[in-house]
């Protein structure tokens, strides 16, 4: 059974996962029994009652009330069990424990932003304490997204102008993947993030240091790290290939044609504006889809990114 579970379902890493899996296996087992029975009947009947001659006569069996009641009522009982089981599981998912640790989640096309109580912000990396309920309060900046952690068996749509929430309690430390499961356009399938469950003390550590700039890094190194941390790579390449946005490669001091036909030089001011107000100037042939990083990146960090972009040619 464990092998089957392992093959069919991702590892169960949250407190509610066990309940979901239990029901999944229950339905699977009952269905399998019934399916085998039905398939056997199909095959057996078509062999046993194969037509022998054109003159074959068949008995007139029009109905059988007992049988029909049986095969209506037994399935009804079974599905009512499934219904009750599913509903209680669902209520557990929807009832947030009062001591839950709260994190704000913002979905943007196409990245996830996580805001923590002390002002720390992480992009595409969610960090949570293990063995403690965590409540995510989510909203979207544009279209509908959906926040899904298969290992935790949780999913909830992320809506514009409205808060939705999802809670879970990770049972062990470790990393799991986060998907966007509501189709949201071009890079929907790249809207992937990770959740890392830490022990309580590791989490405190992470939280205290996450947004502190590592002074030992040079601006170029820092810029490189920031680009990786802030989800820029989902849309920009460093090797010249065109993704959702233009590649950084060779962009420093290049001439950019804008949507309105004018031409600008990619200098520090243009880069800065592109990061803080991406829609002020749209590169020709691109869509205005880059999220603004206003409030997410400090001046110093923006400078570092510019330094890094300068080096990519």
């Amino acid at each position, binding site marked *: 059974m464990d092998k089957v579970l392992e093959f069919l*379902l*991702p590892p169960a890493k949250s407190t509610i996962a066990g309940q*979901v899996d239990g*029901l*999944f296996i229950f*339905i*699977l087992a009952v*269905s399998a029994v*019934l399916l085998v029975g*039905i*398939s056997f*009947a*199909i095959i057996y*009947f078509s062999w046993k*009652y*194969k*037509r022998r001659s*054109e003159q074959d*006569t*068949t008995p007139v*069996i*029009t*109905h*059988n009330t007992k049988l*029909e009641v049986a*095969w*209506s009522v037994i*399935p009804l009982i079974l*599905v009512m069990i*499934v*219904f009750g089981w*599913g509903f*209680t*599981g*669902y209520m557990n*998912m*929807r009832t947030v424990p009062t001591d839950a640790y709260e994190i704000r989640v913002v979905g943007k096309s196409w990245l996830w932003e996580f805001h923590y109580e002390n002002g720390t912000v992480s992009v595409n990396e969610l960090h949570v304490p293990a063995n403690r309920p965590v409540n995510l309060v989510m909203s979207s900046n*544009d*279209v509908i997204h*959906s926040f*899904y952690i*298969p*290992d935790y*068996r949780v*999913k*909830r*749509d992320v*809506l*514009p*102008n*409205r808060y939705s929430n999802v809670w879970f309690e990770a049972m062990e430390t470790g990393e799991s993947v986060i998907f*966007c*499961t*509501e*189709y949201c*356009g*071009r890079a*929907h*399938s*790249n809207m992937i993030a990770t959740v890392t469950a830490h022990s309580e003390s590791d989490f405190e550590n992470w939280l205290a240091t996450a947004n502190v700039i590592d002074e030992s890094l040079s601006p170029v190194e820092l810029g490189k790290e920031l680009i990786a941390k802030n989800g820029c790579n989902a849309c920009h390449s460093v090797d010249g290939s065109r993704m959702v946005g233009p590649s950084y490669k060779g962009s420093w001091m290049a001439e950019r044609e804008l949507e309105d036909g004018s031409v600008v030089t990619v200098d520090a001011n243009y880069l800065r504006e592109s990061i803080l107000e991406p829609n002020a100037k749209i590169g020709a042939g691109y869509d205005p889809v880059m999220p603004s990083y206003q409030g997410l990146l400090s001046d110093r960090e923006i400078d570092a990114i510019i330094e890094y972009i300068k080096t990519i040619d």
Partner: protein
Amino acid sequence: METSALKRLQVQRFKPEENPEIHYLNSERGLWSWLSTVDHKRIGLMYLASIAIFFFIGGVLALVLRTELLSPAQSFLDADVYNQVFTLHGAIMIFFFLVPSVPAALGNFILPIQLGAKDVAFPRLNLASFYIYTIGTVFTLVAIITGAVDTGWTFYTPYSTETGTNVLLMTLGIFILGFSSILTGVNFIVTIHKMRAPGMTWSKLPLNVWSLYATSIIQVLATPVLAITLLLLVMERALGIGIFDPALGGDPVLFQHFFWFYSHPAVYIMIVPGFGVISEVISTFSRKHIFGYWAIALSSLAIAFIGFLVWGHHMFTAGQSSLASMVFSFLTFLVGIPTGIKIFNWLATMYKGSIDLKAPMLYAMVFLFLFTIGGFTGIMLGALSVDIHLHDTYFVVAHFHYVMMGGMVMALLAGLHYWWPKMFGKMYSEVYARISCALIFIGFNLAFLPQFVMGAQGMPRRYFNYIDQFQPFHQLSTMGAYIMGVGFVIMFFYLLHSLVRGEKAASNPWGSRALEWQTTSPAAPHNFEHTPVVIHGPYDYHKPMSEFQLGIAHGHHGESHQPETLETVAETGTRP
């Protein structure tokens, strides 16, 4: 049983003529005779040709998608094209193929014959439906050619109001298409009520007619909601009225309620007609009375009605209240029961039958197997907590392909092979039919079983890229899709061969008792040269064939027919 007046009718036996010289295909000739025809059979065939074309287009798009998904990263499509292709695959298969498949194509052809009527109640309206369908498809094709659509067939707001693609034309096309569906539904309802042959009481109605009846009710009641929804979407996009835009005080989730209020019942528009076909085929090829006639007939109606109340099961993660989710989950399970009942009834029909495993029966058995899997996985998705995990993953994709393709398309193929001799007066190669059935069965399972597994593992749907862990499943799935493709290519060729030089078909090649087999193959221009009189139900295999061929002669062209045998029957069906 019958409370109606015991009218006495003078009837005689009309043995259908074999190899008729004049039939509906050659009674008039030329393109114009087709384009302007009001004959339900010809209109049915024109629908059949149209849905075959759309099935081909939709199928090719599916193969394109599956090919791109062979590898996790981009191979030959970019993300935008991929998104357009999956949108078109879905929209075409659903709105242009599945919805009109059994009702408009097979139903149009067979319903009046099964009722012993000369045509549907409103033949001109029927032709109008076909042209409305054509206009809808033209709009959509123009939309595709001039810029495609990338919203998914569900058109969820706010994405669909913001994307730069051709959503307006596409939704207008589907809006127009809806009217065709509504008109066909109205036409069928009136036909079933008013045009039944003498003696065809409600309890002698073929089950195919019952399921078309249930389908028509859904078509008439649900499609207007789709029309309104799409119209609101058009206004939202074109005029910015803000019904779905939260920034203007609207609600994007409202769109989902509207959309599924149509689209869940639409699932039943797509599958209930299939139930009818399967009932006919299983009874004919088991040469046995259908088991639980009323259970099958009424469960279709039950499904049609409860089906209107379950739309919220598509929105368990979307932000509706827990109470609403509970009610929708509960009703979803209720709708599963009548479906299960049908499966058991069909099995019981085979019990002690005289089973002939001809192509239509093979498809019916494939249907039973695949549709059962589709049903069980539907139970998984109806269970609230499990659905949270499975929603919008490949599990759902696999589930609805098992229901729509494993269910409806297999039923369509069963029906097509079953009624093919009546349509064209030709037989097809039984050997090739079996080969292609086997290939489709194997290919189908290979394509979609792995999707259940990867879905349960967490692979989201509508993903252009995916993480490496899912690759083996995607590769199997793509292999399966190719095998299925080969099966359909073979089918195309043997059916073509049948049309061109197939063996002539007998009027009743399967030895069925149903009324549509008591006329010539291909059917006569007005279905029957006489007015059929029905004294037995269509599944009464214990009664001799001659008693299914009764009718009253028309005194057409002034001549009076001299009956060969004279019988007097009461409408109750009790005879000396």
